[in-house]
């Protein structure tokens, strides 16, 4: 869970982009990097790829300083989506504070989405995360492609689920920031009761989200 180093005044959150292979997890990170103007923004670090497929993980670090002086850092990871990299996915998912599940909107990918989501739930349990309480946002990516599930279909299928739904096209940047913002909201709601962010950081929820995004300014 979130790593608060009180002596050094740092609070680090680990956020993981999970989902089926070729669903657009890395593209989400790159797009987010291009659009956020957070106070501190690292590069998107990609670990050697094989034909552009993530082999271990990607990492996009960003952060801002809270009014109380605490440095709030977010480390955004992607997992390799290919089924055979399950052990790597577990290693990356371990100790995550929040997860974006990037589903592929194409009709042909429904089974892969379902299997990957099932895999997320199982791996969360295996690495000791309480899946019921894990801050989670479900993003349906690739809205720009033809032959995708309609919004009505997606909403109907997921309406019974407790997680916020986001529609996105990571390639064009549509919905990417909104997804990240939604996850920050979930994260705040989940951790505030025990960490008392208002007191510790001097940040209400809206300010917390705004800080991570870089004021309210988002690059066009």
């Amino acid at each position, binding site marked *: 869970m979130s790593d608060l180093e009180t002596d050094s005044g740092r609070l680090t959150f*680990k956020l993981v982009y999970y989902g089926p292979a070729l669903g657009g997890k890395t593209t989400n990170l790159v797009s987010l990097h291009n659009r956020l103007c957070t106070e*501190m*923004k*690292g590069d998107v*670090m990609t*670990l*050697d790829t094989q034909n552009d497929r993530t*082999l*271990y*993980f990607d*990492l996009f*670090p*960003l*952060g801002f300083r809270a009014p109380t002086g605490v*440095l709030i*850092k977010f*480390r955004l*990871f992607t997992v390799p989506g290919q089924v055979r990299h399950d*052990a*790597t996915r*577990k*290693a*990356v998912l*371990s*100790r995550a504070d929040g997860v974006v599940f990037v589903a592929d909107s194409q009709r042909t990918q429904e089974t892969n989405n379902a299997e990957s989501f099932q895999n997320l739930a199982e791996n969360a349990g295996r*690495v*000791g995360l309480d899946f019921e309480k894990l801050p989670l946002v479900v993003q349906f990516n690739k809205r720009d492609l033809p032959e995708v599930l309609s919004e009505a279909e997606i909403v109907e299928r997921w309406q019974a689920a407790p997680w916020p739904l986001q529609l996105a096209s990571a390639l064009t940047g549509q919905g990417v920031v909104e997804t990240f913002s939604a996850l920050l909201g979930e994260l705040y709601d989940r951790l505030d009761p025990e960490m008392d962010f208002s007191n510790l950081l001097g940040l209400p929820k809206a300010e917390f989200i705004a800080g991570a995004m870089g004021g309210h300014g988002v690059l066009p």
Partner: protein
Amino acid sequence: MSESLRELALTELLEPGDFARLGGALTTLLGQPVAFVDARHDPLWGQAAPGALSQPLIVELEPLGYVLAAAEPAPLAAAATLVNALLMARWSYLSASRVHDQVVDEDYEALQRSEARYKALSEELEQRVQIQLATLEARQRQLYESERFAAIGQLAAGVAHEINTPLGFIRSNLNTLAQYLDTLKQLKQLPADLKTFWKEHGLDFILQDSHDILTECIVGTERVERIVHDLRGFSSVDATQMEWVDPGECLNRAIAMISMQKPATVQLESALAPLPAIACQAGLLSQAFLNVLHNAVQAVEGGGQIRVKTETDAAGSQITIQDNGPGIAPENLPHVFEPFFTTRAVGSGIGLGLTVARDAIEAHAGKIEIESLPGQGTTVNIRFPS
């Protein structure tokens, strides 16, 4: 678990030797002494000149340390860019190898777990097979024993009948003899005319007949004695004691027994030469011969001939039991020694007779073979090596 993905410190990304190599090279390039300090500005390597500028070394967000030199800002920034490029490469390698390490550990553990599970599974399976096998063997032994005792039961019935006949006439003879004694008792009163009395009571006949009766009784008891003697060979079927016996004796006993059981229409001829003695369990061997003879009798039940012959040659003893019954169908011939193989009607044998015989003969280092042609009878050859 996730220790593999924590942020790395400058001293984890660079070895002490790396600082020396990098510092030396940058000192040459900048023309000024270069120093490295960590994020808290604690020295790591080198000593910069007073008034030195510093440039941060960054991989993720925050400086992991600084490079210091009393150089112009632009060359120093260029130096930091070089070091950062190296740090990035190191970070990639270390991150990948740490995750890889963890994944390999986990795969290996999973492999060991599944290996242990399969080992346990196979052991359990082996145990279950052993138990099933033991049950099966016990069941088979029971059947085997029951077949042996069924044969003994048949034997007992034949023997009872055989003994009953002499017992019948011995009893009848003894009754007659008792009546004769009543007549002789009258002689006690010393009749006046002994001659007339002798004649009237047919004492000549009584004396002669008493003699005949007693002779017949003696013959009868000898017959019973012989049956009992033959039977004794079978009474020890379970004795494990080995003795030196001519297998022909065992055969003789079996012939004597089968003779009592066989229908009158079956003729049994035997030409028996003495055979060299072998170490054997006589009861077991007798039963083996009896089982073979029993099959022969069944084959010619409606009328036919059985020939039993023994011979010796350099290789050992040969016993041949031949019948002129219908023979065995070629498709059945390879199976006749298999347990529970029978062509007879249900209830008239469970198909262990020849199995028992073969086991007994093989236990005596012997060999049993069957030749048969449909319509031409069956020949059973039994050999014992000398």
